[in-house]
């Protein structure tokens, strides 16, 4: 029903917006191998987003298309966590983002493979393989940058510090999520924290890095990304993502 659709939008928007930020790296990566890897990760996430948004249109009975959700919703209708919309300042930011996001999403979708909605379970099953690779790729760079040169180490630490305030939000379920979780349809993200912390601690220690300790960033009247309350960065993404499609609402591409 409507709650399942809402949940698909949450997971779909996370993937869609994260994929967009990765697309910004296209032609800007430090090596061709990374060019290929980042495009690959972005394609995986874009694929997940398309399946999830399409599922939302079937679950809520409207039959709306993936493109309807991606191109014709306004900012406050997007349900992604704020983490995915933050800009990437440098390559250390990218690596840190992928490690944090990938570890969290892998834990989440790993549990969703056993969810009661067979479509969601199948999407999760496919995604888990992809996310394992994303996490591995990210971990490799976090370790190399953390334990590379003095400069790379400084940048890696700064990157982790920049992302950290947005990590807490990943584990605070929206009421719709938590309710669906009690029915076995969704995962309450609060339960993912243990796995996440374990993975993170192990990767960071391999890179001689510490877990950051900055405070979480507040929402507005308790509302954060899952409630449609975003950072100013999302507006820039949507302007770019939606501009052409909205300029030609009657077109087919």
């Amino acid at each position, binding site marked *: 029903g409507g709650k399942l659709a809402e949940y698909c939008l949450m997971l779909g928007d996370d993937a869609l917006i994260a994929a967009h930020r990765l697309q910004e790296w296209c032609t800007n990566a430090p*090596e061709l191998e990374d060019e290929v890897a980042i495009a690959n990760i972005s394609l995986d996430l874009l694929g997940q987003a398309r399946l999830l948004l399409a599922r939302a249109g079937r679950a809520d009975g409207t039959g709306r298309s993936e493109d309807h959700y991606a191109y014709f919703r306004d900012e406050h209708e997007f349900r992604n966590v704020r983490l995915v919309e933050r800009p990437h300042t440098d390559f250390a930011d990218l690596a840190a983002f992928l490690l944090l996001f990938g570890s969290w999403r892998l834990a989440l979708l790993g549990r969703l493979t056993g969810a009661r909605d067979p479509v969601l379970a199948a999407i999760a099953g496919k995604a888990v393989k992809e996310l394992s690779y994303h996490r591995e790729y990210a971990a490799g760079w976090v370790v190399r940058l953390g334990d590379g040169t003095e400069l790379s180490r400084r940048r890696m630490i700064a990157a982790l510090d920049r992302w950290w305030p947005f990590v807490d939000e990943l584990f605070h379920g929206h009421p719709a999520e938590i309710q669906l979780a009690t029915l076995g349809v969704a995962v309450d993200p609060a339960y993912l924290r243990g796995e996440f912390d374990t993975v993170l601690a192990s990767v960071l220690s391999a890179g001689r890095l510490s877990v950051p300790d900055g405070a979480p960033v507040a929402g507005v009247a308790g509302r954060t990304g899952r409630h449609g309350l975003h950072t100013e960065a999302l507006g820039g993404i949507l302007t770019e993502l939606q501009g052409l499609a909205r300029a030609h609402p009657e077109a087919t591409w």
Partner: protein
Amino acid sequence: MTATELATTELQRHFERTIEHDQRIEPRDWMPEGYRKTMIRQISQHAHSEIIGMQPEGHWITRAPSLRRKAILLAKVQDEAGHGLYLYSAAETLGAERTDLTDRLISGAQKYSSIFNYPALTFADVGVIGWLVDGAAICNQVPLCRSSYGPYARAMIRICKEESFHQRQGFELLLTMMRGTSAQRDMVQEATNRWWWPALMMFGPPDADSPNTAQSMAWKVKRHTNDELRQRFVDMSVPQADALGVTLPDPWLAWNAERGHYDFGELDWAEFKQVLAGNGPCNADRIAHRRAARDNGAWVREAAAAYAAKHAEGQGR
């Protein structure tokens, strides 16, 4: 004749026989220095073209108007990075180094295909690049699958297969747009007008002004002249334009039953020379973008090297 000279003559004869029998020169084989240099230049300029060619399309990925088109375009640009990778590897079999080749690209010592110095201004350009630019590239490249240099010939087989796929995708996008709104049709026509002549220039100067062609054909690293390939491309493209319903911007374009080919107008060789000289609409931007990527990535590559060195020595941690 000294013993060394004798051996060289022997090797030279073996090299020539290999070429003559349409067999392949492999990295371990002896080859004349001129051949090696020509192949390094040809392969690395091809690699550069793939990498620079990511830019005009790449900046449309975030703005693609449907998720399906976004995925197609992202995958295509990723393929181009992959092609760049194979080709740099093929050049490395001849003793070249990727970082050195990149530096030559950025300093202007080595070129890339002139076509990528034109701007991609609308989403229709993505389709037209697939249709005309990839189309012309395929005309150029299919014969290279029989290049006398083995690693290059094998890379080209894979690349041509993927390019054909890209070309069909580009054409399919244009077909969809031509069946869409009138604004979309106008966009396709306008993009076709801009890319047609630069696509014809991709085959290089007229044969009369192409001094290296004879040696390259003798070495079988080039199999047809520029004008032959250009004519083949025109003959192939006219019916495709008809199928799409777009007009090619050449009033001289007409079927010549006598020749069995399409006649076409004179190219603007002055513009071609401007672009080759570095003054095309986007030359400076393309190189500046590639330079920025190289420079911004330097600290990352240094960190990876430092990490590898540390851990090879068993140090660190």
